[in-house]
């Protein structure tokens, strides 16, 4: 099964404006880890907002795991995202007033399917989140600390725990290492990929740093993918 399947997709932010994003054909295989590189202005955030189901393409087809997102309503896309996609931002991933544990548990707040997956593995959401955070290197006391008191690197780990809790089939990471130094960056990526591989999670990792491509199965340049603005 393909994780991501795109055909003749076209999207513009405003009606009657030239498309920001046009993709003729693109597929990501299930379980594949993919590095998506693109300079700013290449339609990166547009593509991510379409993949996450925040926005819907005006034309063409976008399916995730066989579900055509373009045919779902806004509310259904929100549900779909809650159940199937783990998302990590560049930074500011957490609600500052919740503890690290509660932040990780947010993943289950809007998705009963994630809770079910955890239950099937014989765990409670709390225990699962706790294990995940420990796995990502947070100490017992850090797990209970409010998120705003954690360092940036620790915050990104909590974000990773939240994204991976309940084993979503797709993980989208939008430059999650840009705020980390080189040493933390590499260990973060390795840990992220290791945990994803356990659940056979498909990973789309967005970065501007092509040097990271050695960690991933494949490497896609967004400029090659996006035909918008290219005159035939």
């Amino acid at each position, binding site marked *: 099964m393909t994780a991501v399947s795109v055909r003749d997709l076209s999207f513009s932010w405003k009606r009657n404006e030239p498309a920001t994003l046009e993709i003729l054909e693109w597929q990501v295989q299930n379980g594949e880890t993919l590095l998506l590189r693109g300079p700013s202005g290449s339609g990166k955030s547009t593509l991510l*907002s379409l993949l996450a189901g925040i926005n819907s393409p005006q034309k063409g087809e976008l399916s995730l795991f066989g579900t055509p997102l373009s045919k779902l309503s806004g509310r259904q896309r929100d549900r779909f995202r809650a159940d199937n996609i783990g998302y990590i931002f560049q930074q500011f991933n957490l609600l500052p007033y919740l503890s690290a544990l509660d932040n990780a548990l947010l993943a289950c707040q809007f998705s009963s399917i994630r809770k079910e997956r955890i239950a099937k593995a014989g765990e409670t959401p709390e225990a699962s989140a706790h294990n995940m955070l420990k796995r990502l290197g947070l100490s017992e006391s850090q797990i209970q600390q409010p998120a705003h008191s954690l360092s940036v690197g620790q915050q990104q780990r909590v974000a990773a725990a939240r994204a991976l809790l309940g084993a979503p089939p797709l993980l989208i990471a939008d430059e999650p290492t840009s705020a980390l130094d080189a040493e933390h960056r590499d260990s973060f990526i390795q840990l992220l990929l290791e945990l994803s591989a356990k659940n056979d999670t498909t990973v789309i990792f967005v970065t501007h740093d092509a040097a990271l491509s050695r960690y991933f199965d494949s490497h896609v340049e967004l400029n090659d993918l996006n035909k918008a603005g290219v005159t035939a």
Partner: protein
Amino acid sequence: MIKLAIKSLLNRRASVLLTVIAIAVSVTLLLAVERTREQVQTNFANTVSGTDLIIGARTSQIQLLLSSVFHIGSMTNNMSWEAFDDIRSRPAVEWAVPISLGDSVGGLPVVATTKDYFKHFRYGSKQSLTFAAGDAFHDEKQVVLGAEAASKLNKKVGNDITIAHGSGGISFSEHDEHPLTVVGILKRTGTPVDQTILTSLTSLEVIHGGESRDKHDHGDSHAHPPAESISAALLGLKAKPLALRLQRQINTYKPEPLTALLPGMTLQELWKTLRVFEQALTVISSMVVLIGLLGMLTIMLASLRERRREMAVLRAVGAGPGTVFGLLVSEALLLTVVAAASGLALLYLLEWSLAGVIQSQTGIVLSFAWPTVAEWWRLGLVVATGFVLSLIPAWRAYRQSLADGLTVKV
């Protein structure tokens, strides 16, 4: 989601707390206006519960009522004893108690009356006066004190007191040569009676220079009137429906100009004239509540900018824009409900701490009742207004999270 709202509010506790305080105080004000009105009205109604008709010299009904029963203001004219005697002998009248006012002890009013006062005066739900100590006065050298008067003057049964002329606090013409003995102290009634010093009409005459009838040793037994004139009289009728007819008869009394009033109706008239002020107070306090709620609106709108990332995080884990909307509305609702509840608590706290002062200053006894329907309505309106106002930031957050999605450019 409520849990999330609570934690988010706690995170901003400084500004949230200030807003809650502002709204709570304004709610207290709003409720206090209503409660004062209601308590004053029941208190006044309680005081005249057993009296069918009050008569006095020609004056306005409200003035007669206020001065005769509540000792507010003073009476300028008296009615003659002859007129009182004539009216009380009418067949419709069951009982009549004369009262004479104008003197005071330490700022407390002296009510000169007859022993019938203790027999016929009714307060609250038609309760009669009872003695905490001692008994009614029997001659002109004795007085009975209301509960509050006894504690204010620090007098017990057996103590002497001196009566001053005039109703001011300090008088230059104290009737020093006529000390009176306290023979009884009344139980607390929660009416102006608590503040009064009750004595017999004859003792007042003696004080004011009339001769004592005890020392009056001529042999015949013709009845002397106890006083030349009186300030007012309380009447009880054999049948209530007679009140209106008797009132008309007294108001058109030929020998001298008199006024008769039905206490209940006159009180209603009084409340009607005061309603404008009461409404003005209600409007003002409502405005204060609105200002408090606008304060909440301000901090919510101001916080939206810094909370855009928070909204994006929620959207990333699957919250729809509707959830973001709901989150803000529930935050505002939570805040107003807590503020309204604290306002109510503050009201009871104020009532409890000020009850003593209010009673000794005004004779009004505050009762600690559950909120009335009118008060629940006011509380409900506050929360409803808070809810409606919260739709503004909620709508903005909704639009914002639709536009931002997961990419916040701050």
